[in-house]
């Protein structure tokens, strides 16, 4: 053999497979599948394919609960991304994906490659990306390390998205000490496609050729998928070489070349080389096509000599795609890729052997049956433990609620996110109707009057307080974001960020929250069409359970938004009843310093009918603006509205002062002409030219508009001024 690698015997005797992430039982199963001990390359391939990141071995049972079909769903989970019909032979393709672990050790590249990876998922379906979103979690910005992470992640997201030329139109961020040392970086991409262009990652037709295109393979990111499936620790620093390096310039050329290739009738299948690179793309394509595949790895374009088959198969070099094309047409594709100044090569062919066979200079380095490799990944059902509810009652009536208001509004969780989103090009493509700042992103579909509303949202403190009902609320929050634009919610994607499944409480959170989410998806008619799971998010402690929902909606004719402007004199309505709901609220964390486990409540039927009613009123022009009430309750929502629009507020509410900060579900602030009879609504005041005044039964918040604006605008910048 050309490469000096541990023998089968040594891998077995010294249990070298455990270093790659395989357990003894999993290794035993590999031996059964092969009928012999695996060699070094084969052991590496099984270990990445069976990592949590690629196989969802701990989360599969939960993902099965989600409704995945619906009238408009053209393609559900299983391919690179979900596809949903938007009429006129057009569809949208979207998915959210995590890049948490890489971002923890190398924030710029971790985030940049997260964006690059999700873009390739969308492009490999044949769609042109029209919008990017991101959902971020960090520890509090009082810690220097968290400021470093925020700076790095934001510039990494911008560095990739700005260069490739896709607008970043929406996002969300939350700061909580549970994310110290373990930030969450979830990136979402939305693309548009014609129905007849939808591609599948499949390898079919014996003799058809396998083409590699994109960056030359290097030794970067080897075992990245395995790294992503471990807890972070002191040693994680040494895993920095497991972090991939993004090259958005090549990514842009690859995107255009891929979209060109998709127009060629000789293309059989295409898949991006993401997690586990060449291994997962080749194995999954062969499995979907029910074919075998032979790869001649000495043909792979490489950055340096001496890269072994093992390293090649496990490398996560970015900006690469794998194509299967009709035999005899390979030169046409190679020539096309030359025109884009991209490296490409024929590296193999589809076979009828049902095996993945790897050769290097005539020697065989792996011979693995395809189906068991991708289908027989172990599935683990563990035992969760419900910690029950805490013994606690809430009474904030004696607190200084005016001070609490200032503290909340000046906290990065509630203040303006301008510091972040102004680093992202949000208008390239000239179709951005609504960008980051207040509410969902809205992007018009090129050449039409249709537009896509897109949002990404997470409410981890609610999920921590009550995993089952909190899970419902996360979906409901995204639903509220979408109907607030006037769009019809179509479908969603989810990114499940949790701690170790081997921790019984984390496992319970995963179990109960996904049950809640599934129920909400059914009632709100938003099936799950794609998703991603990130477990083992533990560093100094376990993160709050953070399911993140990306949702898209369709606006049939976006022109209704022209000339709609809220202004002084408009009335303010509160829609929905307010309850003393403080479990997981911002006020609870601020005053009590902790989040307690208490039941939360949501009525999904009311959620749905209320949302649809408001949406109709917005489209008909009866109301001008819908703003869902979230973190910090009514008081914070009104302050954000005032600051963003530079308008005063004069409102009076028949409730206790603490209720202004309550955070129960299904509520909105709505702006429109006065005197309207809106179901479930109370008219609470008017917008004014200046001054912010919100009165309750026992306390009043009164500030100048400038004070509100400055506090809100300064929330993040005031943390970022120190020289780190």
């Amino acid at each position: 053999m050309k490469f000096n690698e541990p023998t089968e015997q040594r891998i077995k005797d010294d249990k070298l497979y455990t270093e790659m992430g395989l357990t003894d039982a999993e290794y035993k199963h590999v031996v059964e599948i092969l009928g012999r001990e695996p060699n070094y390359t084969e052991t590496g391939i099984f270990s990445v394919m069976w990592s949590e990141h690629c196989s969802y071995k701990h989360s599969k049972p939960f993902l099965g609960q989600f409704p995945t079909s619906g009238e408009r769903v053209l393609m559900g989970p299983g391919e690179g991304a979900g596809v949903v019909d938007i009429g006129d032979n057009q569809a949208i393709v979207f998915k959210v994906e995590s890049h948490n672990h890489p971002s923890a050790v190398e924030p710029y590249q971790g985030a940049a490659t997260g964006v690059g990876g999700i873009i390739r998922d969308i492009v490999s379906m044949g769609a042109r990306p029209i919008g990017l979103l991101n959902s971020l979690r960090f520890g509090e910005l009082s810690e220097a390390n968290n400021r470093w992470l925020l700076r790095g992640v934001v510039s990494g997201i911008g560095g990739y998205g700005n260069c490739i030329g896709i607008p970043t139109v929406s996002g969300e961020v939350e700061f909580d000490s549970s994310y110290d040392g373990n930030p969450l970086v979830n990136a979402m991409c939305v693309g548009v496609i014609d129905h007849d262009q939808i591609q599948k990652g499949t390898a079919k037709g014996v003799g058809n050729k396998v083409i590699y295109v994109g960056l030359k393979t290097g030794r970067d990111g080897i075992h990245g998928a395995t790294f992503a499936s471990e807890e972070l620790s002191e040693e994680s620093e040494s895993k920095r070489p497991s972090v991939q390096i993004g090259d958005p310039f090549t990514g842009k050329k690859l995107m255009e070349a891929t979209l060109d290739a998709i127009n060629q009738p000789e293309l059989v299948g295409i898949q991006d080389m993401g997690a586990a690179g060449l291994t997962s793309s080749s194995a999954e394509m062969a499995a979907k096509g029910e074919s075998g595949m032979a790869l001649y790895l000495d043909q792979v374009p490489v950055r340096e000599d001496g890269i072994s088959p093992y390293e090649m198969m496990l490398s996560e070099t970015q900006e690469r795609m794998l194509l299967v094309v009709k035999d005899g047409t390979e030169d046409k594709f190679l020539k096309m890729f030359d025109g884009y100044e991209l490296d490409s090569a024929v590296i193999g062919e589809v076979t009828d052997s049902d095996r993945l066979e790897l050769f290097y200079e005539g020697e065989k380095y792996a011979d693995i049956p395809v189906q068991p490799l991708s289908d027989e990944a172990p599935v683990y059902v563990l035992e969760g433990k419900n910690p029950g509810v805490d013994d606690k009652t809430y009474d904030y009536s004696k607190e200084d609620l005016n001070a609490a208001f200032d503290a909340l509004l000046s906290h990065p969780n509630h203040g303006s996110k301008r510091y972040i989103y102004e680093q992202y090009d949000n208008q390239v493509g000239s179709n951005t109707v609504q960008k980051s700042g207040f509410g969902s992103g809205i992007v018009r579909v090129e050449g039409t009057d249709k537009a896509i509303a897109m949002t990404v949202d997470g409410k981890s403190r609610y999920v921590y307080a009550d995993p089952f009902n909190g899970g419902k609320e996360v979906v409901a929050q995204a639903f509220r974001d979408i109907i607030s634009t006037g769009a019809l919610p179509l479908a969603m994607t989810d990114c499940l960020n949790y701690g170790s499944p081997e921790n019984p409480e984390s496992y319970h959170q995963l179990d109960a929250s996904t049950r809640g989410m599934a129920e909400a998806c059914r009632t709100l008619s938003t099936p799950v069409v794609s998703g991603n799971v990130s477990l083992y998010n533990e560093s100094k402690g376990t993160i709050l359970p953070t399911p993140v929902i990306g949702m898209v909606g369709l606006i049939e004719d976006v022109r209704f938004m022209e000339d709609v402007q809220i202004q002084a004199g408009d009335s303010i309505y509160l829609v929905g009843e307010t309850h003393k709901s403080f479990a997981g609220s911002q006020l609870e964390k601020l005053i009590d310093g902790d989040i307690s486990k208490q039941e939360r409540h949501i009525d999904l039927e009311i959620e749905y009918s209320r949302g649809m009613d408001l949406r109709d009123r917005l489209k008909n022009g009866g109301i001008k603006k819908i703003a869902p009430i979230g973190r910090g309750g009514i008081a914070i929502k009104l302050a954000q509205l005032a600051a963003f629009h530079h308008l005063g507020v004069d409102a009076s509410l028949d409730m206790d002062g603490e209720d202004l900060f309550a955070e129960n579900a299904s509520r909105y602030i709505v702006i429109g002409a006065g005197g309207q009879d809106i179901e479930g609504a109370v008219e609470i005041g008017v917008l004014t030219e200046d001054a912010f005044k919100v009165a309750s039964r026992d306390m009043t918040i009164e500030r100048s508009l400038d004070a509100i604006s400055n506090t809100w605008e300064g929330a993040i910048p005031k943390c970022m001024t120190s020289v780190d």
Partner: protein
Amino acid sequence: MKFAVIRFPGSNCDRDMLNAILKSGGEADYVDYRETSLEGYDGVLIPGGFSFGDYLRSGAMAAVAPVTKAIVEAAEAGKPVAGICNGFQILTEIGLLPGALIFNDTHTFISRDETLKVTNSRTAFTTGYQPDETVTFPIAHGEGHYYCDDETYDALKRNNQIVLKYTDNPNGSRGDIAGIINEAGNVLGMMPHPERALEALLGSDDGKKIFENMANWEAAHNEIQ
């Protein structure tokens, strides 16, 4: 008027630029950077983006691309040549416009709507705007700080070559400069994006006149005589 929209690898506002000139009544084609002739075109548009990934220095690689010689010839022939964002950076690298674009003072990428003043509306690009008219164009750049030496700056002022200024300087540009023209008045470079400001629905339609002027170049030219 038929325009060549130059496409470098990494250009990403090429489609926006093409749509903008088509919408304004002009004709346009994409032209690959490997072309060496711009025969048959009455003007040149250099779009924004990250040509050659901004590797080495923004605009530096594009400035030595095969098509560059033809761009210089078009400029010397008096045809309208406009570079927006990365296009402006390329024009300064080629030397068709003086000065250079360096990193924003904030050292971050800045993307937002910016208020600008049209400081010279007596150019064929800006005729139709009122003197000192305030307009809103989006900006989106990391290297938009316009830099030049005293001599160049004095010449720009003396010749009325400064056409657009920021009202609230976002990047540290000398003299708040957002856009300039060459002495002959047929080469325009600007960091803000007028091609993203053609519809009120998207936030602003203040950019229309610039493209309409280019699409009707002769009329615009006559207007300022």
